[in-house]
């Protein structure tokens, strides 16, 4: 879960980068940036969750 979360963080960033590289119009670029950030938030949640569940398993 931790690795998946970290990969999602990087993947979200890659989408934001691609939006700036490939899209010129503001609206589609904003949509892709929003999607990328949403994926990053998902990844952040997964990494956080993996640390909590890791400790719960130790208990």
């Amino acid at each position, binding site marked *: 879960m931790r690795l998946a979360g970290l990969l999602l963080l990087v993947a979200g960033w890659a989408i*934001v980068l691609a939006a700036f590289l490939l899209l010129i119009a503001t609206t589609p670029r904003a949509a892709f940036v929003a999607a990328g950030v949403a994926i990053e938030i998902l990844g*952040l949640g997964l*990494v956080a969750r993996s640390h909590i569940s890791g400790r719960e398993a130790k208990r």
Partner: protein
Amino acid sequence: MNPPPVPSESATVLVLACLLVAPLAIAGIALVNTGLGRSRSASHAMLTSLCAVSVAAAAYFVCGFAIQGFAGSPAHTITAAGKQWNWIAAQPLFLRGLPLDASPACLVFWLQLLSVALVAVIPLGAGLDRWRLGAAAASTALLAGLVYPLFAHWVWGGGWLAQIGFVDAAGGAPVQAVGGLTALAIAWILGPRRGKYSTEGGMPAAIPGHNAVLVLFACFLVWTGWLGLNGAGAMLFCGAPVSALVRVELNTTLSAAMAGLAAAGITHARFGRPDASLCANGWIGGLAASSAGCLFLTPAVAALTGLVAGALVVFTVEWLDIYGEIDDPTGSVSVHAVGGIWGVLALGFFARSGAPVQALSQIAGVATLLGFVLPLAYGLNWLLDRVSPQRVVQEAERQGLDLHELGAGAYPEFVIHREDFPQR
């Protein structure tokens, strides 16, 4: 990106004055780290700060500045979508070729040396009472020699973030957010202090800091240092004229003041009385939020930014502690990462010029922090932890890091833990 213009003599003198007071910010953060930790690890906390500053300066001198460079310095580029993107500087190692005078490049180096020292002390707060001194020094070397310079080059060295329009006057993203996100990685890797979270579940234990006076006094030091950092950053990175310094210092102070008030008001409303450590966190969170936009925002917007930052810090400290199970004794993640990122976004939303495009560029900067800086800092510290465990052994935590790692307590005549001293 064009090289910074050569400042006038009066501007140079003002930059130098700002740089002379900036170390107070580092001293203040070190004092906050010490005051919010346990008394049996106080000496260790202060010495770790000093060592982190030393290691950061050495790493930045050896290779950090070569990676970061400055606007207009030689750099490596990659071509994508028909455009050249600047991604890393190509300066010589050990500052070779840098003129040691009052040139903009040399002043930028000095400011960056202080900034990297500030970045280095931020994660120490998240690892209080359980982070080995040697491990903290090794982690700092990676932060100051690689992570910080690379991101700072993208923002201030004419890198790709600057090319897409990302703006940061004095370090909301490169200094505050990079330090805060590294603190998050450290808190995750080290795990919570013993006794913080019960094996039966329930609410986490409150482990109060040992010296509130130290922490609150540090707020004044941090404020003074921040005035210097924001002033120097605005003049060196954004070419602000001497006359703009008044706006920068006013915005910095207003942001901190409103954040402190917000924290005091919220804690009073929730707990029936203001909470000293959360008020200190709020104050510093307001300063962190002021860094990015201190030159570009109106005083009213800077005050609003501070107000929101203070509220965000109070709520995220509690949220991370209870629901995130992140044991961050000084609130470094909330203060520096959340405060810094909020300041970067506020600049995008509220700056008067180029609203939607500027906001997108600022969001791209935040996405880079989350998608590049956090995984890199986490990965490097995880590897370091595999090579040599970063956390002290259980017995050291019980005994206190002062005795375990340094051999003597910070307050031997005032605070005595009988069981902590070896029997003769």
